[in-house]
């Protein structure tokens, strides 16, 4: 339960400018995911918030109280920030039992032993590993170790919980199970959570807000669905969504009423009302259409809704859904269809979509110019 504000944070590792003038607010009770490819600065941001790293400039306020003032060289130590961190590698102390690992922080705080016993038991129960209290970390499986790491982090009831890619070392099935667990944990405790991952599916399913990073800078901070429906630029649109969004390049003519686009999927008109405030008001411009695979419908015969002709490049039925790659003019489009259908290579098919739902981007500025409505 805590509001964190990062203001103008700069972090250098030697000459490497890792965080560039970062401004981010995490509201009380948020599940904020820091998302991005490797090396974009998300783990560094987490470590700066935790106090393990010191930024060269900027401020951090927690609930209005200043915990970092780089200019005055004031950096509150991690233990004074009422937070806890789950490392990617779990960092469990191999020479201590599970109980001792979880109780460590409480012992430092000089709590009495019955209070400690009660709190540790409760944390272990909550993570469903109560029976392993006497075991050593090396005797546990990856998933169990991870639960110990989380139990250790929550036992002191911190106001802020930081998690650094906690699920990346787990197998696929366990990962899905743990996602649900963490979401439940957030719901039950109401603790503010900052979660780092490069897996956008995790980000979409668990967070209340996502902060997308690119090379040390924030690209977009928004709730998951807003990020999905209306990515602010090409980078975001490409990063979010599995399979990736389809990009179709084309040209457009803009006027006061909206714009008309020409591309391999035909000529489409868009209303000014659906466009962003800073979209061009007039003239010609290069545009890129962004069409999500599930927005495309496919049919073997042409009709009113399916007017775009194409040829199947490859079809991949996967049981619950089918992914078909279709060549349309010079573009390759991926279509996602529910259910299992077999498509032969080079088969002629017809595609359709709802123009209201697609995104349009200005190819040169890379920014969004038309919303999905």
């Amino acid at each position: 339960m805590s509001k964190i504000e990062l203001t103008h944070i700069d972090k250098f590792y030697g000459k490497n400018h890792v965080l560039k003038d970062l401004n981010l607010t995490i509201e009380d009770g948020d599940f904020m995911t820091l998302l991005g490819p490797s090396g974009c600065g998300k783990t560094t941001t987490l470590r700066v918030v935790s106090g393990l790293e010191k930024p060269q400039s900027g401020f951090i306020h927690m609930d209005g109280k200043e915990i970092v003032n780089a200019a005055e060289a004031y950096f509150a130590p991690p233990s004074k920030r009422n937070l806890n961190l789950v490392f990617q590698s779990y960092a469990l102390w191999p020479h201590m039992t599970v109980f001792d690992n979880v109780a460590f922080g409480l012992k430092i705080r000089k709590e009495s032993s019955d209070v400690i016993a009660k709190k540790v038991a409760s944390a272990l129960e909550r993570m469903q590993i109560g029976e392993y209290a006497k075991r050593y970390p090396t005797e546990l499986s990856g998933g169990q170790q991870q639960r110990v790491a989380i139990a250790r982090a929550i036992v002191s009831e911190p106001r802020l919980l930081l998690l650094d890619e906690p699920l990346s070392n787990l197998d696929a099935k366990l990962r899905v199970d743990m996602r649900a667990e963490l979401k439940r944990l957030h719901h039950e405790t109401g603790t503010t959570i900052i979660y780092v991952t490069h897996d956008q599916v995790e980000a979409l399913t668990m967070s209340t807000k996502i902060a997308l990073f690119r090379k040390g800078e924030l690209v977009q901070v928004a709730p998951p669905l807003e990020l999905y429906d209306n990515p602010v630029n090409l980078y975001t649109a490409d990063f979010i969504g599995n399979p990736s969004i389809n990009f179709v390049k084309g040209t457009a003519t803009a006027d006061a009423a909206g714009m008309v686009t020409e591309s391999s999927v035909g000529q489409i008109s868009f209303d000014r009302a659906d466009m962003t405030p800073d979209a061009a008001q007039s003239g010609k411009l290069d545009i890129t259409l962004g069409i999500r695979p599930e927005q495309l419908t496919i049919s073997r015969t042409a009709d009113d809704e399916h007017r775009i002709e194409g040829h199947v490049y490859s079809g991949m039925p996967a049981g619950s859904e089918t992914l078909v790659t279709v060549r349309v003019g010079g573009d390759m489009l991926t279509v996602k269809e529910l259910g299992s259908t077999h498509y032969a290579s080079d088969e002629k098919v017809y595609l359709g979509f709802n123009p209201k739902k697609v995104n349009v981007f200005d190819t040169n500025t890379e920014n969004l110019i038309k919303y999905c409505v």
Partner: protein
Amino acid sequence: MKPNEQNYSKSRRLKNQVMAVVTNPYNVIVLIAIVLLVYLIIFPLVDMLSTTFQLSQRDLRNVPGGVPGEFTFYYWKRLLASDLSMNLLIKPLLNSLLIGVGVSVCAIVLGSVLAWLMVRSDLPFKPFFSLAVIIPYMIPSWVKSQAWLSMFKTPRVGGSAGFVASIMSNMGVSNEMIETLLSPVAYGAIAIIIVLTLHYYAYTYLLVSAALNSVNSELEEMGEIQGASKALILRKITLPLVMPAMLSAVILTFSKAIGTFGTINYLGSPVGFRTLSSELYSNSKSQNTQTAFAMAILMICIAALSVFINQKLIGTRKSYATVGGKGGRSTLIGLGGWKPIVTIILFIFFIVGIIMPVVILIVESCMLKEGVYSLDNFTLYYWIGEGNPNIMEGVPGIFKNSNFQNSLINSLKLTIVNGVFGTLFGQMLGYICAKGRGKFHGRLVEQLVFIPYLIPSVAFGGIYLSMFSKPQTLFGVQLVPALYGTFALLTLTSVVKHLPFASRAGTSNMLQISGELEEAAMIEGAGFFKRFAKIVFPLSKGGFISGFMLIFVSIMKELDLIILIMTPKTSTLPYLAFQYQNQNCPQASDCVAIVMFSIVFLVYALANIFGDADLAKSMAG
């Protein structure tokens, strides 16, 4: 808009920065470590350097109009550019270089061949050989020299016939023939190079075999698939891959060989073969401190130069072992028709080169009169004799001898105290080097701690003798009293000289503990000391024990370092053996050497069983 010219309180900034440095115990410890290291390492060096420029009382007559204590080039001129230079410096220097290069070349070849045979080939009897190959490291080179003398010494130069000489004499060879045949073998450059090669090849063996073990075998298998012959694979693939390890071994061997004193004393001095190290010793003993120090400085420069060249040669190719790290080969290269020959040669080598000398030592220790190899000459007097005025001037056998008991206790005291302190400091410094890796303070400590390695042992002993013989004062306050003749001086010298070794072991120990384990404790609120006690120490204590054992072994055998500092009261086993040998009682000397060697072997065996003592890792320092 970034508030670059934002108003912040400069005084608060300063206060915060100072508080951050001062309240962190780690910073305080680093500061203390640096101060101590500078005091114990840099100061003596500077002191030594400045002494060589100070005119001493005794040499007043050589410098007309001179005043004692004034700045002068006299000593350096005398050493480098006078009529005496040839005799004083050039000849010994050339001899030193001869030994250095000779030993390096031979040791590299021997060690590499053995390493390849043991790791890569299908040589039989490997368990026996791998034990035999390590034994030389545990026997100090001066003991080997003694054994060598016992084997080969001649009546004229050595005072009595060695084993080979007495066999030859029994076979009817004349004394003249014996002298001409054996003298060059027993004494002089050849003897020294052979003995030191048999000692230092162990370094090359350990380093190269470690490299061979960790190099990915698929690299060689690829060569085989492409059709390369075994010899070609060896030359073009294997050899370049282990080159960094071989180069490291060369430098180690070269600087150790140049700095050796004990062996030179046993095998060189009787025939006037002098090197820089023996000159340093004799100059020191006869109070020519300035000249001795000047020589020490030259030796340090040579060592530093060789390290520098080595770094340049190895360059960024620090170790190919980490590249393609799977290593661990399964198929061995067949020796084919060569196998029986190679095996026999190796057996002969080990028996003659290593086992026989030790056996000879044991035999000689039981001989009443030197040089008489017959059963009625057999006696246990030197071991347990009561005290016979006809033998050894009435001094009893070593087990009944108070000198021996004294030396034994001193040796044990020295090794244990040294082991404990050396390990503690070494682990602490290792922690600083590991934590500060890549940062300024880590690099500084690492460089400072490496310096004693460059200083030859004899020189190091001399410097500390000179510096701590007078009380150390700072601004009139006496910090350290005069330590001449005390056990404390011995301990101090040994601890500092072995710091590079101890802190290497400490660093590699501490590096194994992930930084995140400490960070997790930090987040839970554990301060520096709590973290060290609860996390760092429990996880690193295995390394403490093996580090202790290795330092123990190293100090037990130490002669060169303490030879100048030693007094009869503080005498250790090696020094006692040295004295007996110089007093012409080789039997007693042998007894002492055997006792000492047994202790070393025992401790090393214990270290291997209970600890994780890895010779190769600690030697790569």
